[in-house]
C-alpha cells in the first residue's frame, strides 16, 4: 500500500499507539471521584465501602497525599517562562499577577464541578467505577461564583486568601489614547463577548505510568503536547530525580491546548505507580474532559475605537475581563496574547488595553488554539464593522486604508510582546493579502439573496506571533547502516511531524526520506525540549533540525575534504551519498561515511565517537504570520440558521514546507472557528453547574457545517529563522468568529441586528430579529 504521510500506515490500519492502546501486564486503573458542587467545604469523605470492594488496590483523599504529591503551581509551559521578563519591561506600575496553588486532590475546599476529590485504583475500569459509586462525600455549600462581574463585587465571597478575586490586572499602552478620544470625530463603543469553549480533541487526556523492571525508575506515557515539561513537573511534584523518569507522548489524538499544561492527574498517576509498584493507567472520559480539562476564551471586552473623518483609525481603548475559572495555570499568556494582537493588521498609533482576569467557580481556563488571539480579533474586527456601519464607511475599503503595507515592514506596534521583546512585524504585506482575499471572494456591498435568505459578507484580518521561544531542541544520531534518527522536543498531535521534519533533515543530509526516523516527544531521546503549542513547532523545531543537520554535514565535509584533499564546497550531499562534484569516482555512501566516525575503527582519536549533532534553536522573538478571511453567509430569518456559502483564506506563513499539511491546518482551524462562531458555548448556570458537558448538548461542527475552504498562500519570508517560515497551527481558527459574525450582521443589515456575543446560535439570531434593534 502507498501512503502520503509517514504516519498514515499505522494510523489507518489500526496500529496507532495512543496511550490507552498500550497495555502492560499487571496494570491497574484509576478513576476519580469529582466534585459535584462548584464551591464548598468538604465535611466528610467516607471511603470505607470503596476500600472494601474486591479488586480495589488503593483509595486516596487529598489530605492523604498532600505530603507526597506537591500541588501544582503556575506552569512554566508556554508563556510562564516569560512572565518575569514581561513584567520587568512593563514596569511595577503596570499591574499585578497572583497565582493559586492547585491541589492534586481537593483539600478542605472544592472550587469547581469536576475537581478531583478521591482517587481509586482497581483491577479494571469497571471495578474502579463501581468503587467510585461507593464513596460518600459530604460537602457544605459555599456561595458559588458563576459570573466574573459578580465575582468583582465588594461583597463577593473570596475564592482565595486574597483581597479580591482578581488574579491579573495589567495595563499596556502606546501613544496618548485619552487625548485622541477626546477630540476624535467618530467614536464607537461596544461590549463584545467571546464565549467559553472546550478544546475537545477526539482523544481525551490519559496517563500510563510503568515502573521500570530494574533500576527504580518509571516510564510515563501521557497524551500531552509537552512531555519535557510534564517530566519536570512530575520530578518536582514527587521529588524524583529526572534521570529516573522518562516521559513519552505516544500517538496523541489531538491537543489544541487542552494538553499543553501539566495536570494534577498527570503527576498523581506516576506516584501511585511507584507506591503500588504496578503499572497504573488513567484514561479521561468525555465528561471529565468537559469539566476538568481546561476551557478557554471567556472574555468580555469593553472596547472603543476612534476614527478620523476619512475612516483612519486614531486609537483603540479596551478593557477586557477574563473569567479564568478556579485556576489559571498559564496566568498572563492568554490575556496578554489578546492585548499583543489587538491592533492586528492595522496602524493603531494610540492604543490602551487593560486586562483583568477574575477567578470564579468554573473549571480552569488556559489557552486553546489561537490562545487569546481569536478573542482579540473578535473584539477588533467586530468594533471596526460596527463603527463602519455607524459612521458610514465601507468595511472593506476602511480596512484597506488602515492595513499595514510591505513598505512599512518592519513595523513597530509600540508595545512589548509577551516575551518582553518589542512587537515588530517582521514580514508580510497585510494590505495586499487582504486585497487578494477580497478579490477572490468577489465581495460586494449589496449581495443578492440566496433562495430568499439574506446574504452577507464578513471580513476579518489577523496577525499572529508564532514560533515563540525559549528554544526547541534537535538531536541527530547517524547509525551505521546509513540512516538518521532525529529527536526533537516537539511532538505531534496530528501535525505530520514525522513527514515534514524528516524531510527537513533528509533534504539537508542528502538522504532519502525513508532513511530518516523521527523520535518526537520522548524525554529519553532528547534531554531538553519544550513542546508543541503556540504555532511554534515548524519554526523552532524545524529550524533546530535544520541546524543540527547542517552540523552533521559540516563534520562530514571537514573529514572528507581532508581525506580526499578537496574543498568542502565541492562536496555534494545527495542520493544517500556524499560525492565530489563532477568527479563520480570520488563518492561514498552514507554508511561508509559514518564508518569513518565509528569508534569500532579502534583509533584513539577522541572525536571518533560516532556521528551526531545537537542543536537548540533560540529565536530572538516571535515571527509574525498574517492573513485575511472573507466569508459569505446566508441567514434564514425564520429559523435563525446560518449557512456558510463560501469561505476564502489568504494566509502568509512564508515558504511552505508542505502545502497540503499547511492547507490541512488551515481547513481544520477554520472548522474549529466555525464551531466557536456558531455552536460552541460551554455554559454554566448561576450555581456554576455545567449545563452541557457532553457531545450532545455541546455541539462541535460535523461535516455538513464546514465548507471546503478556498485557500491561497501569500508568501513573504521571515528574517527570524533559517527556514524563513512562520507558524500556521493556530492561524485558521483565529479570525473565524469575527468574520462569520460580521457576515451575519451584513446579511441582516436592513433589520437592525447586531450580534455581540459568540456563538451566533439560531436562537440568538431569531431573538435579535424579533427585537429588530441592536441587542
Amino acid at each position, binding site marked *: *500500500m502507498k*501512503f502520503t504521510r509517514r504516519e498514515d500506515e499505522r494510523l489507518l490500519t489500526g496500529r496507532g499507539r*495512543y496511550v490507552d492502546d498500550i497495555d502492560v501486564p499487571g496494570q491497574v486503573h484509576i478513576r476519580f471521584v469529582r466534585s459535584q458542587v462548584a464551591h464548598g467545604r468538604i465535611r466528610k469523605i467516607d471511603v470505607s465501602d470503596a476500600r472494601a470492594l474486591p479488586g480495589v488496590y488503593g483509595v486516596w483523599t487529598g489530605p492523604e497525599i498532600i505530603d507526597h504529591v506537591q500541588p501544582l503551581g503556575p506552569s512554566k509551559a508556554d508563556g510562564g517562562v516569560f512572565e518575569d521578563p514581561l513584567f520587568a519591561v512593563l514596569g511595577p506600575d503596570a499591574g499585578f499577577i497572583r497565582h493559586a496553588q492547585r491541589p492534586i486532590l481537593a483539600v478542605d475546599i472544592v472550587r469547581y464541578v469536576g475537581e478531583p476529590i478521591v482517587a481509586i485504583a482497581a*483491577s479494571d475500569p469497571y471495578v474502579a467505577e463501581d468503587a467510585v459509586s461507593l464513596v460518600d462525600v459530604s460537602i457544605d455549600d459555599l456561595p458559588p461564583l458563576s459570573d466574573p462581574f459578580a465575582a468583582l463585587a465588594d461583597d463577593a465571597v473570596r475564592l482565595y486568601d486574597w483581597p479580591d478575586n482578581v488574579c491579573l490586572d495589567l495595563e499596556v499602552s502606546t501613544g496618548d489614547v485619552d487625548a485622541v478620544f477626546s477630540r476624535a470625530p467618530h467614536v464607537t463603543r461596544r461590549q463584545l463577548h467571546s464565549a467559553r469553549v472546550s478544546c475537545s480533541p*477526539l482523544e481525551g487526556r490519559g496517563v500510563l505510568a510503568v515502573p521500570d523492571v530494574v533500576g527504580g525508575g518509571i516510564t510515563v506515557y501521557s497524551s500531552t503536547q509537552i512531555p519535557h515539561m510534564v517530566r519536570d513537573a512530575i520530578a518536582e511534584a514527587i521529588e524524583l530525580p529526572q534521570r529516573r523518569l522518562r516521559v513519552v507522548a505516544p*500517538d496523541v489524538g489531538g491537543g489544541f491546548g487542552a494538553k499543553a499544561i501539566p495536570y494534577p492527574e498527570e503527576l498523581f498517576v506516576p506516584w501511585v505507580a511507584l507506591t503500588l509498584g504496578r503499572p497504573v493507567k488513567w484514561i479521561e472520559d468525555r465528561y471529565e474532559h468537559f469539566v476538568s480539562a481546561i476551557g478557554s476564551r471567556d472574555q468580555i471586552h469593553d472596547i472603543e475605537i476612534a476614527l478620523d473623518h476619512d475612516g483612519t483609525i486614531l486609537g483603540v481603548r479596551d478593557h477586557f475581563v477574563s473569567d479564568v475559572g478556579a485556576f489559571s495555570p498559564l496566568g498572563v499568556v492568554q490575556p496578554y496574547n489578546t492585548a499583543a494582537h489587538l491592533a492586528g493588521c492595522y496602524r493603531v498609533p494610540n492604543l490602551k488595553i487593560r486586562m483583568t482576569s477574575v477567578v470564579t467557580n468554573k473549571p480552569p481556563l488556559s489557552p486553546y488554539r489561537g490562545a487569546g488571539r481569536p478573542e482579540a480579533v473578535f473584539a477588533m474586527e467586530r468594533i471596526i464593522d460596527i463603527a463602519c456601519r455607524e459612521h458610514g464607511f465601507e468595511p472593506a475599503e476602511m480596512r484597506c486604508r488602515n492595513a499595514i503595507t510591505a513598505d512599512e515592514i518592519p513595523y513597530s506596534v509600540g508595545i512589548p510582546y509577551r516575551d518582553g521583546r518589542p512587537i515588530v512585524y517582521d514580514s508580510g504585506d497585510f494590505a495586499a493579502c487582504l486585497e487578494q482575499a477580497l478579490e477572490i471572494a468577489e465581495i460586494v456591498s449589496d449581495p443578492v439573496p440566496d433562495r430568499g435568505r439574506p446574504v452577507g459578507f464578513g471580513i476579518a484580518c489577523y496577525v499572529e506571533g508564532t514560533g515563540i521561544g525559549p528554544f526547541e531542541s534537535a538531536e541527530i544520531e547517524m547509525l551505521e547502516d546509513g540512516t538518521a534518527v532525529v529527536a526533537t522536543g516537539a511532538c505531534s498531535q*496530528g501535525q505530520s511531524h514525522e513527514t515534514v521534519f524528516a524531510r527537513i533533515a533528509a533534504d539537508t543530509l542528502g538522504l532519502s526520506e525513508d532513511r530518516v526516523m523521527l523520535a518526537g516527544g520522548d524525554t529519553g531521546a532528547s534531554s531538553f525540549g519544550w513542546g508543541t503549542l503556540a504555532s511554534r513547532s515548524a519554526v523552532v523545531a524545524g529550524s533546530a533540525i535544520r541546524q543540527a543537520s547542517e552540523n552533521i554535514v559540516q563534520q562530514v565535509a571537514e573529514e572528507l575534504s581532508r581525506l580526499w584533499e578537496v574543498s568542502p564546497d565541492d562536496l555534494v550531499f545527495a542520493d544517500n551519498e556524499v560525492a565530489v562534484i563532477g568527479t563520480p569516482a570520488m563518492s561514498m555512501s552514507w554508511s561508509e561515511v559514518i564508518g569513518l566516525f565509528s569508534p569500532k575503527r579502534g583509533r584513539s582519536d577522541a572525536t571518533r565517537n560516532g556521528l551526531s549533532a545537537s542543536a537548540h534553536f533560540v529565536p530572538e522573538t516571535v515571527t509574525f504570520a498574517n492573513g485575511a478571511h472573507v466569508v459569505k453567509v446566508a441567514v434564514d430569518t425564520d429559523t435563525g440558521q446560518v449557512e456558510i456559502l463560501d469561505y476564502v483564506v489568504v494566509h502568509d506563513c512564508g515558504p511552505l514546507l508542505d502545502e497540503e499539511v499547511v492547507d490541512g491546518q488551515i*481547513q*481544520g482551524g477554520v472548522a*474549529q472557528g466555525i464551531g466557536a462562531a456558531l455552536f460552541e458555548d460551554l455554559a454554566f448556570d448561576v450555581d456554576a453547574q455545567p449545563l452541557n458537558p457532553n457531545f450532545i448538548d455541546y455541539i462541535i461542527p460535523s461535516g455538513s457545517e464546514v465548507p471546503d475552504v478556498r485557500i491561497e498562500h501569500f508568501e513573504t519570508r521571515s528574517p527570524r529563522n533559517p527556514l524563513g517560515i512562520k507558524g500556521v497551527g493556530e492561524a485558521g481558527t483565529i479570525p473565524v468568529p469575527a468574520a462569520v459574525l460580521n457576515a451575519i450582521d451584513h446579511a441582516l443589515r436592513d433589520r437592525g441586528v447586531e450580534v455581540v456575543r459568540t456563538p451566533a446560535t439560531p436562537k440568538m439570531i431569531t431573538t435579535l430579529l424579533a427585537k429588530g434593534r441592536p441587542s
Partner: protein
Amino acid sequence: MNSSADSPTRLDVEMVVNGEPVRRAIEARTLLIDFLRTELGLTGTHNGCSYGVCGACTVLVNGVAARSCIALAAQLDGATIETIESVSHTERGQEILETFSRCRGLQCGFCTPGVVMTLVELDRRIETPNRDEIEDSIDGHLCRCTGYAGIKEAVDQTLGRVGR
C-alpha cells in the same frame, strides 16, 4: 478486564471477529468496544465519547456500521464483527485506505478508524450512492482536526462523485 474478585455473572460469547472465530467468557456488562480492545487486543477501535455520538468506535456488526461503545458484547453472541484491523485484508480495503491517505482525510488519526469503517460499509452496501445517505453517514462522525475537507474528498473518490 475480568479480574474482579467477586466474579460477577459471566456469559459465554462466540463471535467471528475479522474472520477469526473467538470464544470468551465475559462479564455481562462488558461493552463491545472493551471486548474488542481488551479481550482481543484490537486497539484500532477508539473510544471518543462512550455514548455513541462521536463515531470513533464504529465497527461493522454483521456488515452494518454500529457504535461499539453502546453495545454489550453479550448481546452480539453469534455476530460477525469487522474492525479497522481487517480493512487492509482486501484489495478494495487497501484502495480505501490509500485514498484516505492521499486525500489527507486524517491528521491525528483518532477518529479515523470509525470513519473508515462507515466508508467501508457504504462502499459495499450502496449500489446507487445517494448523496443524502452519504452525508448523513459522514455527519455521524466528529473530527476535530481535518475540518472534513479531506474526509469528504476521500469519500467522494471512493464512492464516485455524488453531487457534491
